[in-house]
């Protein structure tokens, strides 16, 4: 891939990542992540 193409793809992906993160925050998805992460995940530790 040409250098210019790589730079354009990198810029596009960074913009998309930032947009996704903002939309996710707007939809309150970080609360879903938090509520899963602060409880012991029984599947992860092999008893659920």
């Amino acid at each position, binding site marked *: 891939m040409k250098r210019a193409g*790589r730079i354009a793809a990198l810029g596009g992906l*960074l913009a998309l*990542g930032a947009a996704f*993160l903002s939309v996710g925050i707007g939809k309150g*998805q970080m609360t879903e992540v938090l509520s899963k*992460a602060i409880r012991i995940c029984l*599947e*992860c530790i092999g008893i659920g």
Partner: protein
Amino acid sequence: MKRKSEWKRTAVQAASLLLHNANLKGFVTGKIYQGDLKQVCVPGLNCYSCPGAIGACPVGSLQNALQKSKPSFPFYVLGFLLLFGALLGRFVCGFLCPFGFVQDLLYKIPFFKKIRTFPGEKYLRWLKYVVALLLVVALPLIYTGVPYFCKYLCPAGTLFGAIPLLSLDQLLSDQIGPLFWWKLIVLIVVVLVSLLISRPFCRYLCPLGGFYGLFNRVSLVQLKHTETKCVHCDRCVPVCAMGIDPKTQFDSTECIRCGKCARVCPTDALRLGLLDLKKKKEEQTA
């Protein structure tokens, strides 16, 4: 032969392991961290049920978003994954991932034989995409309520989550059953194979590594190869952590940007660096 030391990378990996698991008191109390930082996804594979974990595992969080009876598009988790991937690619694997570090330490242990690749290596490497599509995405979406990768495969959950928690909490350890023994067998197999071959879980099974690999060609962190400097001595080939040929596959989805090849290159033809924003004529582009 010029051989630059690996200690700096090892120091970064150790620091990253500590940062991912900075809630050290959890290893004494057997309680997991429950503060606000846990809403932030970490870059590497690090179970959020590790008593030390201060952030959320991106693979676990993704399955959690998809396994709901009415799943919504996981913008938030994918946002983190896109940003980590675009900035770092598999540099996350080479320098930051706690489970990658564990495998590197295991591979340093002298074993009767070390091998570079398995027979059928090319096909085995596709397994991680099957794991990602099936266990992380499709099955949690279809049969809701179960994070299949976490439940049946993830050895990081067993090592960082199950072993410390179950040894500290009697109530939890009383519930140990066949599923735990299955997960322990998976972990033991990964540990044993890691003595024989470098990074087996990263090569063949990790959905996160597979995802970050898709960004290697465009990520800000790059492994660069300058064809005009290369004397084709092949010193980089046997040291490659992922069993690829660095001088031709420097852009591969498999490269974890560990820089081992660059450290043994006698002419600096291989170099770990940032994507050039200004054009340089001699640098080879794939």
